[in-house]
C-alpha cells in the first residue's frame, strides 16, 4: 500500500486563556492533545465528539488554518506548515472543506457562481465557467443557478452550493465539519446521499466530523472518538458499533439511537 494521503503525527494545540489573576500565568487550554491518525486515498474517516472535544480545532489544523504547537500534519507526504505560502496555496486545490452553517459559509454579497469559482481563481486554475457548471451539475443544481445570490436558496441547496465549491478543484480530500447538522432530517438525508455519491464517483477521501454517531456511521469506514482533546477510541465502523471498548463511546451510541 502506498503512503497515506493524510497523516497526523502527535498533533497538539494549546490556547492561552485570558488571565484570571494579575501575577499568575494565564491558564492554558489544550484543545487537541497528541492526536495521531492516517487516512488513505478514497477512505472515509469519521471524527465524533461533543462540543469542546477538540474536533473542530483538529479540522482547522488539517485545513492549515492554524499550526499545531507540537506534531505535524502531513498531506501527501508534505508537512503543510513547512510549505511556502505559494506552495500551500497550490496544495489547497487538493483538500477542501464544507462548513456547518450553510447560511454563513457563502458571502451574501456574491453570486453563487463567483463563490464556487473562488478556489479556482485563488489557486490559479483555469476554465472556470465550464468547471462551475460541471460542479453545479454534480451536486444536483442547474447551470443557471450560478447567476443567483445565496439568499435565493434554501438551507439544503446552499449546502449543495458549498459542496460544489469544495469539489470544483477536484480535491483528493474533503473535510466536512458538521456539514449536515444544521439541516432538517429529510434534507440531511439528501446531502448525506450526495456526499456518498461524490465520494464514490470522484474517489474522494473524506473526514466527516459530527456530534452525531448515527450520521457518521452511515458514511464512514472508520471512526475516531474524541473527548476533551484526546482520541479515546478508534476503529472500523462496524466493530466500533458492535463492540465499543470505551464507556463514553457506548453512551454516544445510546444517545444517537444506535443502541438502546
Amino acid at each position, binding site marked *: 500500500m502506498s503512503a497515506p494521503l493524510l497523516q497526523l503525527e502527535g498533533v497538539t494545540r494549546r490556547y492561552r486563556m485570558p488571565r484570571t489573576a494579575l501575577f499568575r500565568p494565564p491558564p492554558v487550554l489544550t484543545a487537541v492533545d497528541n492526536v495521531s491518525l492516517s487516512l488513505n486515498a478514497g477512505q472515509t474517516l469519521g471524527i465524533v465528539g461533543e462540543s469542546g472535544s477538540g474536533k473542530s480545532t483538529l479540522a482547522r489544523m488539517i*485545513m492549515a*488554518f492554524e499550526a499545531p504547537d507540537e506534531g505535524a500534519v502531513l498531506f501527501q507526504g508534505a508537512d503543510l506548515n513547512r510549505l511556502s*505560502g505559494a506552495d*500551500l*496555496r*497550490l496544495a*489547497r*486545490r487538493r483538500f*477542501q*472543506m464544507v*462548513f*456547518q*452553517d450553510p447560511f*454563513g*459559509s*457563502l*458571502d*451574501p*454579497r*456574491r453570486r453563487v457562481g463567483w*463563490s464556487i469559482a*473562488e*478556489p479556482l*481563481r*485563488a*489557486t490559479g486554475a483555469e476554465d472556470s465557467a465550464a468547471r462551475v457548471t460541471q460542479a453545479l451539475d454534480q451536486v444536483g443544481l442547474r447551470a443557471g443557478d450560478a447567476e443567483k445570490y445565496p439568499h435565493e436558496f434554501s438551507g439544503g441547496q446552499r449546502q449543495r452550493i*458549498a459542496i460544489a*465549491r*469544495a469539489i470544483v478543484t477536484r480535491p483528493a480530500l474533503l473535510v466536512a465539519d458538521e456539514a449536515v447538522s444544521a439541516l432538517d432530517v429529510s434534507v440531511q438525508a439528501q446531502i448525506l446521499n450526495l456526499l456518498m455519491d461524490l465520494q464514490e464517483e470522484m474517489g474522494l477521501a473524506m473526514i466527516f466530523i459530527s456530534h452525531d454517531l448515527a450520521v457518521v456511521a452511515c458514511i464512514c469506514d472508520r471512526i475516531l472518538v474524541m473527548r476533551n482533546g484526546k482520541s479515546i477510541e478508534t476503529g472500523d465502523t462496524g466493530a466500533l458499533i458492535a463492540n465499543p471498548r470505551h464507556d463514553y463511546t457506548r453512551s454516544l451510541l445510546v444517545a444517537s439511537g444506535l443502541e438502546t
Partner: protein
Amino acid sequence: MSGRLPVNLIIGAVLVALVVGVAALSLVWTPHDHAAMTIRNRFQPADATFWLGTDQLGRDIVSQLMVAARNSMTVALVAVLIGGSIGVMFGLLASALGGWVEDLIMRVADIGFAFPALLFAIMLSAVFGPSLTIAVAAIAFINIPVFARVSRASANQIWTRDFVAAARAAGHGRFAISRDHILPNIAAPVIVQGTIEFAVAILAEAALSYLGLGAQPPSPSWGRMLSEAQTLMFMAPHLAIYPGMCIVIAVLGFSLLGDGLRDITDPRLKRRRA
C-alpha cells in the same frame, strides 16, 4: 409596516437634498454676484431684490449663503473621502494582520482621537499659513482614526464568518480576502459613519472659518459670515442668524440621514422591526 422608512431617514434626506441642491444651484445661478460690494446698498432689509437683505458691505446674503454651502460641501466631501479612505485602509490592514500590527495601528488611532482637530489646524496654519487646503487636511486627518476604528471593528466580525474561512480554504491570502469579502461586507457601516462624519466635517469647517483658518476672502463661508456678523450683533442680528441656521440645517440633515441609514442597515434593528 415593514416597508416604511424611518422618520429620521426621511427628514434627513429632505434636508440634505435641500442643502446639496442649493449648493449645486450656486454653480450656475445666484440672485446676485456674491462678492459684489455696493456701499449704497449696505444693511438693506429683506425685499424683492435682496431676499434676505445685504451685509455691512452691501453684498447679497442669499448669494453668499448659496456659494458658502457649495464651499462647505466640497470641503466636507473631500475631507471625508480622503480621511475615510486612509482610515478604512488602516482598519482593514489592522484586522487582516492582527497581532502587534493591529495593536500598533489602534494605539496610534487612540492618540489621533485624543488630539483636538482645532489645535492641529492651528498648528498647520502657523506653519503653512491659513488656507482652505489646510482646513481640508486637518479635517481629513481627524477622520482617519474614526474610520480606522469603525472598519476594524466591522472587519473583525466578518473575519470570524465561515465564508471567510471558506475563502482561506480556497487558497486566498489575507489581502485578497480583505478586498473580495471584507470590504464589500463592511461597506454599510462605513457609509453610515461617513454620513455622520460629513456632519462633523461641516461643523469643523465652520469652526475653522470662524477662526479665520478656513476659506479666505472673498470666498464666502458660513463660519466666516458668523464671525464678521459678531461685531454687528446688535445692529444687524440677521447677519448672524442666517448662516447659523444654514449650519444647523446641514449638520442636522446629515446626522439624521446617517442615523436613518444605520437603522435600515443594522441587522439587529431590522430583526426587531420584522
